[in-house]
């Protein structure tokens, strides 16, 4: 059973530029995969194909072995967590109401939502008693990103997609949040976009390197240092 499969997928921008060029890739359930690449390499496009924010120009996406085109996108997205570089919390909703977004869309009762939110926030070291009623603007960048993780994880999604969630944070907080994310998403299939090779190594067991819309390397994290591709060698060298 695969969680995600790209079958010969290409994405063309409205201006004719090729964002993704005939990518084929399979991600198994429970895998933790990092998409590594420079900006514009196609890794974010590849990520957004999974929850249908981007549609393939050709080829087929399969989620849990079913073609994405035949699935109800809204229902699918409620089961896929999504965290971006910009925390993008709803500014008019409290921390708790932000986290309760998907449970409410799914019609959970409030008690269940409250329990799940409290447990998750405790794990993210953001006690609900202190933070639940605050608005996002009263939180630091790191705290906002923790709320974004909680909002994505509360329904225990089968898949968690992260698009450089920590690259705007300072190094200390970044490391802390990386650990918390690994802890929180222990049982979830994870696809994590980053341009930071150290972060990729830390978070993922498998690294897929994108360049100019193509996959140029697909390797276990442990084998990345031995990869021959010149771009991969430059990435590895940059990690020191």
């Amino acid at each position, binding site marked *: 059973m695969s969680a995600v499969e790209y079958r010969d997928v290409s994405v063309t921008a409205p201006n004719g530029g090729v964002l993704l060029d005939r990518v084929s890739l399979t991600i198994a359930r429970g895998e933790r995969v990092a998409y590594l690449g420079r900006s514009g390499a196609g890794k974010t496009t590849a990520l957004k194909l999974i*929850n249908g*924010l981007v549609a393939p120009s050709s080829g087929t996406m399969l989620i849990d072995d079913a073609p994405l085109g035949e699935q109800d996108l*809204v*229902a*699918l*997205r*409620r*089961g*896929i967590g*999504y965290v*971006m570089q*910009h925390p*993008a*919390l*709803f*500014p*008019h909703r409290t921390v708790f109401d932000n986290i309760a*977004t*998907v449970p409410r*869309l799914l019609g959970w009762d409030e008690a269940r939502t409250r329990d799940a939110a409290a447990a998750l926030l405790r794990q993210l070291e953001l006690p609900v008693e202190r933070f639940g009623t605050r*608005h*996002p*603007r009263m939180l630091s960048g790191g705290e906002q990103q923790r709320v*974004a993780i909680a*909002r*994505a994880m509360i329904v225990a999604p089968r898949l968690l997609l992260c698009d450089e969630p920590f690259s705007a944070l300072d190094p200390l907080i970044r490391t802390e949040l990386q650990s918390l994310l690994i802890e929180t998403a222990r049982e979830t299939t994870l696809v994590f976009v980053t341009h930071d090779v150290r972060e990729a190594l830390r978070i993922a067991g498998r690294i897929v390197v994108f360049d100019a819309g193509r996959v140029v390397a697909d390797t276990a994290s442990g084998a990345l240092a031995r990869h021959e591709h010149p771009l991969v060698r430059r990435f590895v060298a940059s990690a020191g």
Partner: protein
Amino acid sequence: MNLLRLTGEHLLIVVIAVTIAIAAGVPLGTFAHRRRGAGGVALRVTDAVQTIPSLAMFGFLIPLPFIGGIGMRPAIVALVLYSLLPIVRSTLVGLQRVDPHVREAATALGMTGRQLLWQVELPLATPAIVAGIRIAAVTAIGVATIAAAVGGGGLGTLIFRGVAMVDTRLILSGALPAALLALVADFALTLLERRLARRRGEA
């Protein structure tokens, strides 16, 4: 006594007109946001209406059946037309100003287009919409003085009578309360706008 009645009439015309303009303008602005092409046309029409001088507008309305004629009805129709533009435009601007990241997050979390609109876009656009309503109300209070020219009543009655009799005190007795009404409306709606902005987490 007379002044009180005329002020009441004035307010009544304005409140009815602005209420109708909100009921039509907010959906129209939302529509303009969703459908760029048709929305552009709607905006240009309300823009064009805004350029018609108010006295001429009342004149145009007199011969029209149903919406025109003499009295309060054409006055309200004219005020609705003037109030539409600021409300449609501010609704559109408020919706367009919603952070695209927030919009993307809402979609990625599994909101339908309608849920995105009601749960995210409209709440975040509310302070802007109230700003539009404020401009519409203040404008309407001013323009409503001209409604007396078509027998619409209100404080304009005193002004027109004063002009005819070259009586400055009579003119002022209509103009000052109208100005005061506009100031009070402006103040109250500004307050509401600020409070909403704070609640929506913007200020």
